[in-house]
């Protein structure tokens, strides 16, 4: 019988074979080519358009004639000098941190819960999550409006029944803070299904016998989680966090519809709404393009930490 020591050099010689033999060094390029081709063909012109327009004065008049007047960096300067832009940026960053934090924490807790419940409850809960996921945003917003109506909404009813009598007729749309809190609950509620289901799928990659061995050794659940589960889940946690940052920073439909166009003011702008109002609503496409590219830059900066970590893990 061949011993492990004798087979070691033989094994390492074979090591590169699986992935090496599948093709030559050009293999990875063929693997990514379709994705590059599709996105390049579809988004090539829009990207070029955005960059070009951000340096032009381009309104409805210019759109019709399909020719703008070049103004260099004037659009960028006007946006960066706009105090509303900076206030909105800070507000959006705080908003994003709150949303991503809540989504990830609740997501992990729910995914762990999914592992622990019995099979039928698990099926019920995941089906429930998919139901939540499948609800169209417009409809979800309307249900939120009904539920939080200050006169007869079920939210106030439930809270006052729980003993907080002061909330019997609370108007949730009064302050910017409560408006954005409502938007946060809607967004987190809608985001949890993807996070929970993806984390649960990731948890399935955690070897069960490792966990059982640790538990037999007397390790408490928190240690098991921290030392075994998290390291394995790390790639997925990083992915979900970076995706959540990107999506929550640029979220538009929920705040726009929930707050309502008539109640949107510079005091409760979020970045995507600022982009919409200052760019597209006013048909100032040049300014809108500049704001879009600035938003791209900002989100890139915000998520670079997570993306770097992800890339590094993959390279290990």
């Amino acid at each position, binding site marked *: 019988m061949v011993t492990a020591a004798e087979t070691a050099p033989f094994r390492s010689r074979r090591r590169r074979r699986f992935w090496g033999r599948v093709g030559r060094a050009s293999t990875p*390029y063929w693997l990514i080519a379709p994705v*590059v*081709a599709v996105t*390049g*063909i*579809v*988004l*090539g*012109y829009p*990207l*070029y358009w955005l960059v070009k327009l951000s340096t032009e004065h381009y*309104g*409805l*008049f210019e*759109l*019709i*004639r*399909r020719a703008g007047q070049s103004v260099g960096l004037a659009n960028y300067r006007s946006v960066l000098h706009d105090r509303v832009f900076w206030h909105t940026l800070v507000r959006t960053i705080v908003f994003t941190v709150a949303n991503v934090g809540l989504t990830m924490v609740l997501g992990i807790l729910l995914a762990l819960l999914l592992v622990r419940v019995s099979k039928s409850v698990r099926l019920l809960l995941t089906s429930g999550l998919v139901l939540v996921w499948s609800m169209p945003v417009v409809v979800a917003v*309307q249900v939120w*409006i009904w539920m939080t*109506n200050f*006169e007869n909404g079920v939210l106030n009813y439930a809270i006052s029944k729980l003993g907080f009598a002061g909330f019997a007729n609370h108007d949730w*749309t009064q302050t910017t803070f409560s408006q954005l809190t409502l938007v946060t609950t809607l967004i987190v509620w809608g985001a949890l299904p993807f996070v929970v289901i993806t984390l649960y799928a990731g948890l399935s990659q955690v070897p069960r016998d490792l966990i059982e061995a640790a538990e037999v050794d007397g390790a408490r659940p928190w240690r098991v989680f921290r030392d075994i589960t998290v390291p394995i889940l790390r790639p997925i946690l990083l992915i979900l966090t970076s995706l959540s940052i990107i999506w929550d920073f640029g979220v538009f439909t929920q705040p726009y519809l*929930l*707050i*309502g*166009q*008539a*109640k*949107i*003011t510079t005091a409760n702008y979020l970045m995507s709404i600022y982009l919409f*109002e200052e760019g*597209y*609503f*006013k*048909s100032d496409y040049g300014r809108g393009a500049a704001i879009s590219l600035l938003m791209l830059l900002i989100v890139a900066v915000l998520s670079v930490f997570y993306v770097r970590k992800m890339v590094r893990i993959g390279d290990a």
Partner: protein
Amino acid sequence: MKRRSIVALCLVAVLAAAVAAATSGATKKATASSITVWLQTDAQNGWPDLVAAANKQFQADHPGVSVNVQYQDWTTHLQKFDATLAAGTTPDVIEMGNTEMTKYMAAGAFQDLTSLKGTFDNSANWLKGAAAWGIYNGKLYGVPYYAGSRVITYRTDLFKKAGIKKLPNSLAALTADARKLIAKNPKKGFSGLYIAGEDWYSALGFIYDYGGSIAVQVSGKWKGTLESPKSMAGLAAYKSFFLAASRAGKTAIEASPNPNPYDVYAQGQAASVIGPAWYTCCTGKYKSVTGQFVMPGHVPGTVMPGFLGGSDLAVPIGANKALAADWIKDFTSTSSERGLEQKGNIPNATNLLGNSVNERAAARSWFVPQAKHWVDVENGNILRNMLGQILTGNLTIKQATVSADDNIASVLNQS
């Protein structure tokens, strides 16, 4: 490294090819074997028979040309229109809201129909207010399609119970009646006449009733006129009327996320509401005891100026003008307009006017200043905020109007 630069070059090549393909010449307009018409879903739900009749007439006159009617919705149709303008694939006929026209006319989005005005039925008798929507710099770009005014929808049973024998013919009488109704129905939140505090469509009628206005153009520059004595008198009248008659929120609007006035009515929380005439659709269990009357002005016997809503039909650039104008002619023909009137709308010509409450209310109407950037004033909620500040008392009428005028002037006068 060599390979990295090859990769980068390939990426750039793909992007460059995509850009080149997209910018190489505009798409050619299809030959005249069909025309595309954009109408709002109001037509699909409300009067599909009139659309069918117009299509039939058009095809009789132009055999071999089919009509492709595509129904749009108000929230996205302008975005779609902008996309078609950029791509050169505009529809041949488009329905535009009256407040949407000015911006697009100023940008040159439509073809000049002045020479064809005579071909449209009853064009000599078009309602003055409605005709103005489609005129810019003296040229005609839009044909008035239909209009709608504002009326008071009321509970006949509650009015009778409160002892109101005659419908009020002056603002003072209306205020007194509203007080009576509230006294007789002491439910919490019950309104004699429900009007949302920031419902600017209803509130600004008061300004025009007293002879004021929102803004005027003086030698090319726009000036806000809300701080003029007449406008302020109108706002003061609005404030006292609101406080007496309505228990709506002072900063509430007449749409989501605040309750719709017709829902408040159907819940039994208001004896009357002010709004478009189609509110009779949604009166719930009070359908049999609902009536409508014209809102009176402050001078007895006059009508409170109502906001005239409505739509125009225009021909975008790049479209087949002759065929498009012909379709518009068929759709705004006398018989078609009469059909619209039957469905409760206000037709586009004075000789077609009937005697419904909706049409009588249009006898005095007001419209927004026809400035290129007016939509920005609306989107910036300048008027709504002003009303809210006045009603809550956060600002005096003078302070609120001065601030609003400044905002309006700076928005309207931007390049």
